[in-house]
């Protein structure tokens, strides 16, 4: 089986490669990257005028299976990923039941193999049941296949538990992904605290609700030498804390999501619950600081925090609606439109944050770059194509996106996983 992608602009930050070239795939692996490859009998994809990049990796997805299959399944979530140009997802363990034991991890892996169309790597719980009290069997989870641990959705409120998690997971080189939120400070809050929350009469969440925990976790990373990864950075203060920690060579990495560099809390103004997520949308100064953090490398990865919720779940009073928005299908378009076209990041810098950097931080062997022999996970992007999604366009079972109708550029035209085209393709539900 040979596949030849011809005449595209290949952007592979992992190899510091950015040039017009062909990419040859043989038996699901990268065989050669250079201009003018001739391969007899190969299926040919003409990619002139397109960007050819290593398959995008989303390190923060909620697949909802098991437990909330009405919102998303491994089958639907991986199709949404393929539709968004994403070839690998790391799925969060806050399912029902949570992924805190080996059989649960095996369930995800098996389901992904049977019904998924992109690569799925599970993240395991830090604590049993994500309750924040007793450590989960981190070593067993690691052996079964988790690539990180996190109680995402919840913070590990007890500092001693977080300390032990960072300390213990160090021996497996497992990153501990921290959902930084001081629940006492954020209690009952539903949006960023500020002018808009006051005018809407909604309870505010102060930035410090995140930043207090970012600073605590950085201190614990320094204490333990563990691998700390800060999830969904949303405030200027967090960016600054992480920047200072990196200067002190503390082992900390960070991610943010497209909504935090695109939207501010004023979009909440019609009580649209598709603007409700945790952490909440912040102010313009935070958006600017997030962009600066992406630019100077303080923020390593861009991810989705894809959090599907049903229509009936979301179409209700703002206080009662659950936190979270979907993101798999809009990440690439928002990165291109909001970061690349505005010159915050170059193509290479932006693609790195969705390919080689996540692959390296989470030890995803054989992925994230076009090395000979690596898995042929490839995303082909039409950089110029303008498009806007309706709710019906999303492959995700859930439609809770604040970006419906928003004009995007940078279209994921073809998604290839292990040498097989998964989008566009006959996509079973």
């Amino acid at each position: 089986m040979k596949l030849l992608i011809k005449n595209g602009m290949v952007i592979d930050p992992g190899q510091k490669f950015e040039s017009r070239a062909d990419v040859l795939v043989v038996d699901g692996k990268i065989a050669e990257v250079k201009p003018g490859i001739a391969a007899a009998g190969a299926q040919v994809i003409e990619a002139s005028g397109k960007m050819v990049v290593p398959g995008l990796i989303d390190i923060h997805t909620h697949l909802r299976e098991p437990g909330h299959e009405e919102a998303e399944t491994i089958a639907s979530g991986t199709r949404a990923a393929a539709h968004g140009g994403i070839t690998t997802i790391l799925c969060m363990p806050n399912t029902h039941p949570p992924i805190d034991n080996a059989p649960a991890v095996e369930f995800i892996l098996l389901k992904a193999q049977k019904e998924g169309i992109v690569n799925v790597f599970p993240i395991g719980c830090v604590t049993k049941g994500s309750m924040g009290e007793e450590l989960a069997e981190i070593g067993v989870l690691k052996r079964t296949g988790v690539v990180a641990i996190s109680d995402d959705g919840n913070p590990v409120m007890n500092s001693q538990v977080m300390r032990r998690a960072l300390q213990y997971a160090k021996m497996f080189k497992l990153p501990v992904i921290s959902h930084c939120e001081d629940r006492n400070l954020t209690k009952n809050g539903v949006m960023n605290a500020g002018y808009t929350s006051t005018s809407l009469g909604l309870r505010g969440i102060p930035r410090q609700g995140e930043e207090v925990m970012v600073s605590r976790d950085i201190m614990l990373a320094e204490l333990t030498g563990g691998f700390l990864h800060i999830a969904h950075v949303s405030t200027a203060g967090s960016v600054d804390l992480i920047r200072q920690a990196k200067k002190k060579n503390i082992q900390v990495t960070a991610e943010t999501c497209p909504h935090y560099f695109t939207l501010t809390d004023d979009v909440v103004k019609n009580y649209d619950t598709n603007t409700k997520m945790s952490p909440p949308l912040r102010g313009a100064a935070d958006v600017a600081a997030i962009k600066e953090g992406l630019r100077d490398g303080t923020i390593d990865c861009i991810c989705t925090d894809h959090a599907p919720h049903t229509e009936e779940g979301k179409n209700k009073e703002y206080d009662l609606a659950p936190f979270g928005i979907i993101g798999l299908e809009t990440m690439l378009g928002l990165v291109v439109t909001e970061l690349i076209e505005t010159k915050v990041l170059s193509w290479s810098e932006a693609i790195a944050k969705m390919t080689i950097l996540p692959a390296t931080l989470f030890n995803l062997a054989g992925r994230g770059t076009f090395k000979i022999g690596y898995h042929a996970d490839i995303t082909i992007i039409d950089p110029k194509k303008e498009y806007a999604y309706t709710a019906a366009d999303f492959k995700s079972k859930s439609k809770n996106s604040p970006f419906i109708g928003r004009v995007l550029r940078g279209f994921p035209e073809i998604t290839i996983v292990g040498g097989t085209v998964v989008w566009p393709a006959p996509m079973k539900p």
Partner: protein
Amino acid sequence: MFNHKDLLDLEHLDKKEIELILETAKPFKSMFTRSIKKVPTLRGKTVVNLFYEPSTRTRTSFEIASKRLSADVVNVAVANSSVVKGESLIDTGKVLEAMKADFIIIRHSLAGAPAILARNLNARIINAGDGFHEHPTQGLLDMYTILEKKKRIAGLKVLLVGDILHSRVAKSNIWALKKMGADVRVVGPPTLIPPAIEDFGVKVFYDLDEALKDVDVINILRIQLERQQDNLFPSVHEYVALYQMNGDRLRLAKHDVLIMHPGPMNRGIEISSEVADSAAAVINEQVTNGIAVRMAVLYLLSGQKDKI
């Protein structure tokens, strides 16, 4: 002239529209002293009072206002309704619409509930207080009362006292007062002052004695005693010491100061009986004016062109 489907807040009304409502309320109020206090304006229209929170004064006021306009009024007691069986707000609204409700007057403990109904229904929605957001008809009746007593609003100094953070009355007052050109002050402990309130153009005070100097109107907000559990203030005893509007404080104020309270009052807590029953207090007139203002709102929203 008044081109709105719903009345959800005062934030999105302009000065002219507020003035129109206040002007329209005047003839309705003059009607109250007649032997027949009723006009046929809304004959054949159905008004539903959908109250998710207990309320005596606002619900009764809307009911009387509707009846004086000859509308048919239905009160939905939420505690006995399908809501307790788990029906969603939108579905409840759709049921009422299917029963051909022309107006739904909603009181809800959560901000934005009226906006959600307005978005999902064709019926006209009037916000009778939603969470910590707004209570627009209260704001309007406060404007009416101030205007009636002081003959103007522009240039007056108006002080709001107490729990600004959780007060929808404060929010609606601030919007209306600012639009009408008043100089607005708020006073309360920092824990009960909402974020970024200065950006609404109000001046923040912590000391009541200092704040009430030279003001023309003092609007005292109800303090909810359960706030103390969230450590927003240490005790009722301390709140009374720092923020109760009492006789001594009244004597620090201008001699012609107007004392207002949206009710229901906690006598002896945020307001002493001496003040509540003083000549400066217009608390009962606020209630009377509330009916006239609500009649004006119903009338204007109904889009009737004929003269009252």
